[in-house]
């Protein structure tokens, strides 16, 4: 049923349709609306049997999910940013134990400086943890991906993280075609774990593994992620058959058939990119878009197949590895190895800075002229950066630059505030 609904609410109601059995909750913006809504449904008895546990930290949230999943319950939680980093040790552990936990990651920047707005630094920080990471472009896809995530996780015994842009998606109210219980029940069978904590057939789970087998264990985890590359399209196809809607899969393409330039991105910014691409197309440029849905496992072959015909690939990503450059761009450069395709990496939208259609049009025009540098930071205020660099040269001192920059910007909206030098 099509409803005008907040992204968080759509996800919460969809998760509820998946019949979670243990939900652990710790508040952090911008994820909080999701677990609040699930919490109401559990407390009212609507979701029985389901336990909603208000934990004391994200580390505990993932740990409770680990215990619940190992004991055979379908476990769910959600987090963002600092919360994900605080649970990092347990995030790795859940994957290592092969527990099919599903977690929503409402993507948000990581401090310092503290920042609650959207970028993908949090997801990138755990890309090597062994979780499957799926990125939603829209709230419709965010909702749909959760249903697919539970099935994928439980088929493969691998935890799945559904990434949706904080605020941009979580707090946006838009039309979402909500699934009904019978459709979800038919698509998602009850969780039947391969190995479970059962007093009647006791097993030891989480034993120490030394050098004699650790590499094999890790390699098997890698193979299971590669298996996911096969399962993700199959599950997306089954979902389409059940709902009549295309959602998920390894990647999505838009106007790529004859494209000389292909723009690659993750998440909600794909919408703005498509608008800018439409305008460039009207001007006669052969430009298209690829959205990566499955970031981990990374679909090397599918990406290579769709990009190899292009002359230039422009990666726009909301995260980067400090001291190195783009993260997604690095993966793509490997996928494009041996082709004639030029790769351009653009870092944009950090800490919630808007990525506007106009800025993207300019960017694509620069790219079309062959003038885009290998690594670009979109809309960077070079004046601010230069002033701070000069200060650092003049007086050698340690400490944060954020406060200096704020003084430069003189907080224009704080009318009446006394100016300090």
């Amino acid at each position, binding site marked *: 049923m099509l409803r005008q609904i907040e992204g968080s609410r759509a996800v919460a109601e969809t998760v509820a349709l998946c019949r979670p*059995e*243990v939900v*652990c909750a710790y508040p952090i913006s911008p994820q909080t609306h999701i677990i609040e809504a699930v919490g109401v449904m559990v407390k009212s008895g609507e979701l029985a*049997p*389901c*336990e909603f*546990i*208000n*934990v*004391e*930290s994200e*580390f*505990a949230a993932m*740990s*409770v*999910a*680990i*215990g*619940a*999943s*190992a*004991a*055979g*319950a379908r*476990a769910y939680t959600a987090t963002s940013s600092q919360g994900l980093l605080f649970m990092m*040790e*347990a995030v790795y*552990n859940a994957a290592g*134990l092969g527990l099919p936990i599903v977690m929503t990651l409402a993507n948000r920047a990581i401090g310092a400086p503290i920042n609650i707005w959207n970028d993908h630094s949090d997801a990138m920080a755990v890309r090597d943890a062994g979780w499957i990471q799926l990125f939603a472009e829209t709230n419709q896809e965010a909702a749909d991906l959760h249903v697919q995530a539970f099935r994928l996780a439980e088929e493969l015994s691998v935890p799945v993280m559904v990434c949706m842009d904080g605020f941009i998606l979580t707090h946006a109210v838009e039309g979402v075609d909500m699934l009904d219980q019978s459709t979800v029940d038919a698509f998602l069978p009850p969780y039947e774990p391969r190995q479970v*904590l*059962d*007093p009647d057939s*006791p*097993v*030891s*789970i*989480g*034993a*120490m*593994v*030394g050098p*004699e*087998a650790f590499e094999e264990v890790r390699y098997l985890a890698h193979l299971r992620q590669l298996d996911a590359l096969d399962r993700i399209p199959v599950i997306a196809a089954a979902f389409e058959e059940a709902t009549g809607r295309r959602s998920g899969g390894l990647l999505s393409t838009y106007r790529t058939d004859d494209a000389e330039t292909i723009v690659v991105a993750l998440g909600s910014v794909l919408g703005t990119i498509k608008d800018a691409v439409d305008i460039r197309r009207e001007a006669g440029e052969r430009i298209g878009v690829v959205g990566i849905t499955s970031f981990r496992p990374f679909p090397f072959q599918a990406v290579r197949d769709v990009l190899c015909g292009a002359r230039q690939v422009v990666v726009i990503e909301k995260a980067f590895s400090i001291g190195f450059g783009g993260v997604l761009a690095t993966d793509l450069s490997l996928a494009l190895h041996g082709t004639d395709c030029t790769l351009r990496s653009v870092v944009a939208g950090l800490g919630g800075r808007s990525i506007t259609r106009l800025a993207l049009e300019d960017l694509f025009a620069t790219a079309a002229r062959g003038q885009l540098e290998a690594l670009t930071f979109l809309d960077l205020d070079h004046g601010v950066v230069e002033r701070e660099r000069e200060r650092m040269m003049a007086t050698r001192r340690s400490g944060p630059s954020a406060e200096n920059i704020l003084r430069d910007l003189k907080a224009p909206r704080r009318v009446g505030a006394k100016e300090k030098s």
Partner: protein
Amino acid sequence: MTTRPVRFYQVGSFAVGNRLLEDGDRTVQSDLNRANSIDSGHRACQGCGEALGARYALDAAMRATNGQMVAVNATGCLEVFSTPYPETSWRIAWLHSLFGNAPAVATGVSAAMRVKGKPEVRVVAQAGDGGTVDIGFGCLSGMFERNDDVLFICYDNEGYMNTGVQRSAATPPAARTATTDAVGPEPGNAFGQGKDLPRLAMAHDIAYVATATVADLHDLEAKVERAMQFRGARYLHILVPCPLGWGSASDDTIHIARLAKETGLFPVFEAEYGKVTSVSHIRRRTPVEEYLSIQRRYAHLFGKKPRTEVIARIQAIADRNIERYGLITDETVGATREVTA
């Protein structure tokens, strides 16, 4: 019906053989049908107090739950020596996740058992003192305040022994560890620091908090059984001497644990809903020197020039415990263990 008082022959230990007790009073370990939760073949050091404590505690919990139990283990000695790949000493359902999250993992297992319609399956979580008072404390306090149905057992050997004997917040004053070495003007661990976890647990008003030592295993078993009679969060703090970390003879583990209790340095008691309900009285008041002098971690107190002022400060701690818990009464000497109904 005539009654005959049980006579305790083993005067040195006050322990009594199971042969002399009625069936109902015999230890779980004396029962051929005990669970053997942690079986032989593990790699604990000779004289390990933790291995002994875990065996008695878990077998007692298994009997109390009719075998319907899952154990969650924090990282540490117990986890490492019991599961060297590809072997396991555990004959019960057992889960290890991380160092600091055992209470939360146990909460998750307990919640899963409820939703799966198996509320009879009980959960015991266990950790060393590092996993309890330090890195696991946040999760433990959360589990306590939510009153999750978990018995949490701390095997307290007063330091990070698995990593090579470093100080924890359970390391006592003056004790030498690798990070509180016996050097400088105030050798060993500082005075005035550390966490008293049983009292912190009581402050959460949970149903049951108790302490025990491996010197009185009958008492330890009784406390585990008592703990399993409650639903909700429960806490059992067991003093387990560590020959490696304490620098004690491996055949002195029981002796040292007994001295910890008899000096008053380790008060043995039970509390329900935040109130102390019973204490194990000191039978033969013992000066702390007797306890300290047989452990190399305190060797710096007994050199050519004994540090009498430091020993006096430790004695003061024992005296304060004796007063706080009323560990000595007029009838103390010769008192018998009170078995809780």
